[in-house]
């Protein structure tokens, strides 16, 4: 760690993560409200050892994330939580999450058409609908109870991102293992490399295969689009792009899917509103992402001496943007701690903001929307099988949410039955 960019703060520094009591299963940590009110830019010590400014106000978080000139992504998005992510290591050739400006845009624009356009989402929708229906049929055939996270959300989101990229479901273990280590408390780059190597070898073979025989998948189209451009992507870059789609592309969505269902089941009046008026589903999805999204926060580094909301910040300082806390700012949202499935407008920061905003957000929206539509239509009796207080939460992963969501139902209606 470079001491000049990481000034010591003193013995009374606030420690991240803040306590998340059992009584607040949806977050953010209760202390966030007081910080936002009284010390919206405050010095904190992160579990990885770095010190940083924790920023909790909506306007301030938007300002920092929206200004890549003043606040760079180079140190890494999660160096406050992932001990293996050394902020001082050189940026890898395909590590575009740490790139700024044109270098970053080159990657973003080759991935964008595969995961963001309305046309692509319309093409993916029947695939996602089939995955959701097939999973529900399988659960119905097995009984009247399941773990919604492990038995539904993880398999559906895994198959969706695998199907999008072009990786068969039976080969999911490689990217599941990589994600487990990447988002865990792993402390060494060596541990991460050990689990990434087999994935990279697999993806390299896939890239070579798709170059020779294009298929109807994103990898094949990315290769074709890249070859038509000015600076075609190398095989190594293509492997990196596939890994960046697959590794963060399932558990983040699965977790918010499971956490979102849990939130709705714990807010029966809002669930009843949705049931009565399914046209609210798109705004419910936005509200779930506002309510739960961005909980771990992300990191930027000041490129010059500057200010955040009038508070001086020095060149080299790290900043942790607490998006979930910002999305509960009364200055930005009326009654922000209330779940409101009809909330409009809802300019939340749950997917981040700025050029690095989640590039999988449209596919996440699609998966959440189809899942909610289908659950309301096919499993109207869906309910928690245990008291809310007994739902276990994940530990040892930076993707915060329930470890299991035990649910039960009376009947799963046939897929064809439109409601």
């Amino acid at each position, binding site marked *: 760690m470079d001491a000049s960019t990481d000034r010591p703060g003193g013995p009374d520094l606030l420690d991240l993560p803040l306590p998340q009591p059992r009584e607040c299963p949806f977050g953010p940590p209760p202390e966030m409200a007081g910080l936002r009110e009284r010390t919206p830019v405050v010095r904190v010590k992160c579990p990885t050892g770095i010190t940083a400014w924790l920023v909790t106000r909506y306007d301030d978080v938007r300002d920092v994330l*929206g200004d890549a000139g003043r606040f760079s992504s180079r140190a890494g998005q999660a160096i406050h939580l992932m001990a293996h992510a050394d902020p001082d290591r050189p940026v890898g050739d395909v590590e575009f999450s740490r790139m700024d400006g044109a270098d*970053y*845009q080159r990657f*973003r*624009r*080759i*991935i*964008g*058409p595969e995961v*963001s*356009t*309305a*046309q692509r989402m319309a093409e993916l929708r029947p695939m996602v609908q089939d995955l959701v229906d097939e999973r529900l049929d399988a659960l119905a055939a097995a009984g009247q109870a399941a773990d919604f996270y492990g038995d539904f959300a993880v398999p559906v989101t895994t198959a969706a991102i695998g199907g999008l990229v072009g990786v068969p479901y039976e080969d999911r273990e490689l990217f599941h293992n990589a994600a487990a280590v990447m988002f865990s408390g792993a402390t060494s780059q060596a541990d991460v490399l050990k689990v990434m190597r087999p994935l990279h070898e697999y993806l390299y073979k896939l890239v070579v295969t798709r170059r020779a025989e294009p298929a109807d998948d994103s990898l094949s189209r990315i290769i074709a*689009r890249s070859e*038509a451009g000015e600076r075609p992507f190398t095989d190594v870059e293509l492997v990196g792009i596939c890994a960046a789609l697959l590794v963060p592309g399932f558990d983040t969505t699965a977790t918010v899917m499971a956490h979102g269902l849990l939130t709705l089941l714990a807010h029966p009046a809002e669930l009843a509103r949705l049931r009565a008026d399914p046209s609210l589903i798109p705004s419910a999805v936005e509200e779930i992402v506002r309510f739960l999204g961005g909980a771990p926060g992300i990191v930027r580094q000041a490129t010059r001496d500057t200010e955040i909301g009038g508070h001086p910040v020095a060149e080299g300082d790290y900043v942790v943007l607490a998006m979930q806390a910002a999305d509960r700012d009364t200055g*930005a949202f009326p009654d922000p701690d209330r779940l409101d499935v009809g909330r409009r*407008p809802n*300019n939340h920061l749950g997917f*981040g*903001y*700025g*050029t690095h*905003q989640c*590039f999988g*957000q*449209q596919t996440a*929206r699609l998966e959440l929307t189809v899942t909610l539509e289908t659950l309301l239509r096919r499993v109207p009796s869906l309910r928690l099988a245990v008291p809310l207080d007994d739902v276990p939460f994940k530990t040892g992963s930076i993707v915060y949410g329930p470890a299991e969501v035990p649910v039960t139902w009376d009947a799963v209606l046939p897929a064809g039955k439109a409601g």
Partner: protein
Amino acid sequence: MTGGGGGGPVRIGVDVDKCVASGMCAFVAPGVFGQREEDGVVVVLHRDPPEDQHEAVHEAAVRCPAQVIDVE
């Protein structure tokens, strides 16, 4: 927050060089914004959209993560 609709006509400008193809504008205001097939970059389909689209246009400008949409 969004400025809301109403008022006079709106004029839309976009800075395609800064666009990161997030799809946010086309998601929020699909009648007004589209995306290029080859790189997902924003295309304005309707430079002077009807009044019932104004609120969506303002929302698209606020939610664009790369701040490339300018509405007057």
